[in-house]
């Protein structure tokens, strides 16, 4: 690990001034990604600003029925929050399917949004990686790419976004609230992440030093009927090969509205808008779900070892929709 200096932020202002204009400075929250990557020399910040003392630890109801989640709320606390379990079960389920109990106790809401890919080559500093070292090449393209993405890829990067939480947040149309040199910003999650394109090193719209303060969930009357389905190599404690976060508004057997996002298959948490459209107005049931799954994987581009993900992702979507429909709204 490279040497760094460490400082605790006492408040938001001292956090922002600690990182803004300081190339090499980074925020430290739960540390479950950052410390790991620092041990691997993938990330080498020269200064860490510890933001864990900041008071963004509350989950509060917003006027109008939405919910605001402080950036420092730990994943385990969020997953077990009563309001999340009842109103947004898909988020609770996604969180509990991720990582391990210990890691969930550490990881924060803001930090999870910025989780880095598990691409083996990104994590291995001896191999070329455009995300880690722009222009060096992509080792996964012709390497072992079983875990890699089939949606949103470019010729420069096929790394998968690893988070479960973010898939649920994407289905729920979350808004990410940030604070930076230019004041507060409110960013819809679907505009927060970049696909790799020509710049895999740029993963999101955050400016240097900009800090996530909260995540807001809009009021959505049907999200009680939502579900997260995750498929992985072992029964627990593994990253998704494929996952789906879905919510269904079913009235009189007919789908009025739907939300579908996928994990494990995209270079960012993947919202499947076409699949949602395919569901609306259809009778809830296998035919509609199958059509939605086909639409969700339309345009998928596979590589040597990950072609299986197309069918797996379709089945994951179908299963998630089936399970969600069985819930009472």
């Amino acid at each position, binding site marked *: 690990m490279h040497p760094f200096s460490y400082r605790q932020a006492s408040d938001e202002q001292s956090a922002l001034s600690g990182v803004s204009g300081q190339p090499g400075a980074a925020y430290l929250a739960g*540390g479950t990604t950052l410390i790991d990557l620092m*041990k691997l020399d993938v990330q080498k910040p020269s200064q860490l600003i510890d933001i*864990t003392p900041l008071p963004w630890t509350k989950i509060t109801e917003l006027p109008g029925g939405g919910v605001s989640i402080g950036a420092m709320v730990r994943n385990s606390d969020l997953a077990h929050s009563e309001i999340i379990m009842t109103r947004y079960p898909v988020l609770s389920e996604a969180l509990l399917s991720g990582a391990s*109990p210990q*890691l969930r106790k550490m990881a924060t809401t803001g930090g999870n949004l910025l989780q880095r890919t598990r691409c083996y080559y990104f994590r291995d500093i001896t191999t070329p990686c455009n995300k880690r070292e722009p222009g060096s090449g992509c080792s996964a393209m012709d390497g072992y790419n079983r875990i890699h993405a089939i949606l949103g890829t470019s010729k420069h990067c096929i790394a998968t976004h690893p988070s479960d939480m973010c898939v649920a947040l994407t289905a729920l149309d979350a808004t990410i609230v940030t604070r930076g040199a230019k004041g507060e910003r409110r960013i819809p999650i679907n505009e927060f992440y970049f696909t790799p394109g020509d710049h895999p090193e740029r993963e999101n719209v955050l400016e240097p030093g900009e800090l996530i303060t909260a995540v807001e969930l809009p009021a959505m009357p049907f999200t009680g009927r939502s579900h997260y389905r995750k498929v992985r190599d072992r029964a627990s404690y593994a990253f998704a090969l494929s996952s789906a976060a879905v919510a269904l508004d079913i009235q009189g057997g007919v789908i009025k509205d739907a939300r579908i996002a996928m994990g494990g298959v995209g270079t960012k948490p993947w919202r499947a808008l076409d699949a949602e459209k395919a569901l609306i107005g259809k009778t809830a049931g296998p035919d509609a779900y199958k059509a939605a799954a086909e639409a969700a994987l339309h345009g998928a581009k596979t590589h040597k070892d990950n072609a299986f993900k197309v069918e797996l992702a379709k089945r994951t979507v179908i299963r998630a929709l089936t399970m969600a429909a069985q819930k009472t709204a």
Partner: protein
Amino acid sequence: MEHGAAATACPSDPALAPGSLAPDFRLSHPRNASLSLSDLRGQPVVLAFYPPGWDPSRGEQIAQYNKILTQLPNLHAELMDFSVDGDWYDLRFAREQMRLPFLANPSPQPEIAQLYGAEGREALFVIDADGVIQWSYRAPVGVPPKTEDLVEALRLIAPQPKEETAAPKAPRMALTRRDFIAATLAMAFALTLGAHAAQAEPEAARMGATPMAPAMGVSGGDTMPITLTVNDAAHDLQIDPRATVLDALRERIGMTGSKKGCDHGQCGACTVLVDGRRVLSCLSLAVAQQGKKITTIEGLAQGETLHPMQQAFLTNDGYQRGYCTPGQIMSAVGLLTEPVGPEDADVRENMSGNLCRCGAYPNIVAAIQDVRKANTNASV
């Protein structure tokens, strides 16, 4: 880089210059037949002289080796394991099936260091299959070992992995697992923490540990004064910000109950409680824990009375080797205060962050369920 000048730091003694025959010596070890350097002809050998306290069988140093090896793309080798034979370490690498005898720290026989002009300093000699010195490096006395020098040494032998597949000529006696663990535990100093030998903790000294070895490859940053509260006792430490809670516990405070398994948050062997919540000490920085209460496996028992979870692990035989056990127990204690369903399946899911190769899982689940049932009965 500094080690570019390493070659010029080679011994001035012409008998030790590259191209000359490596002086032979005999190693005697109480548990083993004596072995000469010349017995190892037919394969390359690395002679490494390090200050006391350096031990390549330590987890940190294994990790360090792997880091070094990743810098040698031609080698395509990953260090798999060690066998230890007296003063020799046999490093085994994956893929190439390569074995590399590695003489480290022959301090019990100072005449060997003398023979190679390496008393009290770091020195490395790469000796080829014919017993000829190919490369050597001797650091000035008092200069800490540097990873780069080892990289340089391994780089030299990397391009000829085929030659190294030859079986060692010398008979090897494998160290038993118990010996290995004992040897590992005896060496109580982390590579990553070692930059400040002079500040070795008095507690550590009382425990009979050797002074902290200088770090390899780290140009230590500034240290910080912190107070860690562990099992209700305050520990004042001057610590490198890079130190994890796990390293601080094991290497500075002398509490080796928390184990280092993967050191990357994937196995749970390092689980401790921070303010009552189970977390991974290998991914937690020590400097970030001030004002928090850390509970380790050492802090569970009340005097001679075991914590109910410890007792339940004993009663249910919830361990095999035992290396994962402190992490399993701490995780299980943390679980008791969490919303976890009543079934065995719920326990399994909520213990999934503690991985081991052992066969103790069913008994661990039974132990945890015993404690949970007793708690339920007690609170009814």
